[in-house]
């Protein structure tokens, strides 16, 4: 359920209090921080890496980084936003270092058939889109498409932010998102066609 403005204010106040206690060395407060934001950060890492094991390692690394860098959190943005950015960057760095050049070659090959693949069944746009189906369809995307879609449509980043994070031009981000959505539509239509 979406948070109301007053929920957000209360959540931000709680976060600020937790940060203050963490800075004083209160590890119980750090546990609270993990409880409040751990799932969100794990989800970001899991969706970007596509691996539960990698996401588990990453979320630990991210929280250790958070503990070391809490003093640099100025409180200008909400804590959740700051943590989210750390998680996105750490996950993208991980993917870049792990997959490197091999992945980029694969992505290029996969670009070729993204638009050409025909939609092979009627999707029911009037019916609620099954989120499990969407999650599975996202997992089938080529990595570069998946990252663009996740960062824009799931995590809410703007194209210029995605460009900075991925080291690509803003236009490339838009193009990848276009192809990702098109491919997802094809996958989802195929899925609904066999129902």
């Amino acid at each position, binding site marked *: 359920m979406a948070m109301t403005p007053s929920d957000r204010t209360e959540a931000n106040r709680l976060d600020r209090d937790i940060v203050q206690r963490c800075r004083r*060395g*209160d*590890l*119980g407060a*750090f*546990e609270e921080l*993990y*409880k409040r934001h*751990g*799932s*969100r950060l*794990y*989800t970001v890492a*899991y*969706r970007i890496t596509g691996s539960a094991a990698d*996401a*588990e390692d990453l*979320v*630990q690394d991210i*929280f*250790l980084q958070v*503990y070391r860098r809490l003093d640099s959190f100025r409180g200008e943005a909400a804590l959740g936003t700051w943590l989210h950015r750390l998680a996105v960057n750490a996950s993208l760095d991980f993917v870049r270092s792990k997959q490197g050049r091999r992945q980029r070659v694969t992505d290029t090959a996969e670009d070729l058939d993204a638009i050409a693949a025909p939609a092979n069944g009627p*999707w029911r*746009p*009037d019916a*609620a*889109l*099954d*989120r499990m189906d*969407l*999650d599975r369809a996202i997992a089938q995307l080529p990595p570069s498409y998946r990252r663009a*879609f996740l960062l*824009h*449509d*799931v995590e*809410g980043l703007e194209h210029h932010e995605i460009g900075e994070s991925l080291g690509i031009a803003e236009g490339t981000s838009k193009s990848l*998102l*276009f192809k990702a*959505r098109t491919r*997802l*539509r094809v996958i*989802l239509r195929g899925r609904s066609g066999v129902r």
Partner: protein
Amino acid sequence: MERDTLTDDDCGRFAALVHDRVSGTTGGASQADLDAHLASCAACRSLLADLVAMRGAAAGLPDFTPRTEVWTNLSQRLAAELAARPRPIWTGARVALAMAATLVVAVASSVWLLRGPSTAPVPQASAVPAGAPAAAVIQSPKDLVQDVDEHLRIADEHYAKAITGLEQVVKGGEGALDPALAATLAKNLGVIDQAITESREAIKTQPNNQLAQTSLFEALRQKVALLEDTVALINVMRKGDQAGAAKILGGLSKS
């Protein structure tokens, strides 16, 4: 007549605008063009409806919950990092009593783990059948935490006794030390005592403060080490062993 496929050149051009609209980035002029096209093109209306549904579902994708082990591992890594941190208040004497240190770190880590957010079901002591061997009795988390607190208290007492004994030895042999050196050692001991006092005060207000517990035991270890070095120094000075004294002082200055 309405188009129902995206093969038309116009549809190709408008598809990008449809995506922009879904992203909320369509400009004013192109908005009107797109609306006019959508009014006559079922295929593009279908594309728009699909993408809107997809975007809505994407924004509402649920979070996943990491396994409990993630927190357990994280808390262990955090405890290890804290234990390895440079000492915050003093930079003094060398680390001694390695076995005692290991014991204290292990107990402190257990405190952290036991107070962690374990959600796994823990068998209760009452679930053990009557007459089962004592070793098979599984303690509840509360009992285990009390046990650990008790061990910490015992470790604290052990250090206190060792320190008292060493202080008596030092007091009896201070005359063997050069007055300037004795003053330096006394000053260093004062710094460590200050750290012990501050850690105890922090624990008094926050009994579960792991950092304060670690700092306290680190300070106690430092004090024992410095007193042991002082006793060793007194002994070699009494024997007139200048080389032995130099060796001990060298170790102190490096630490």
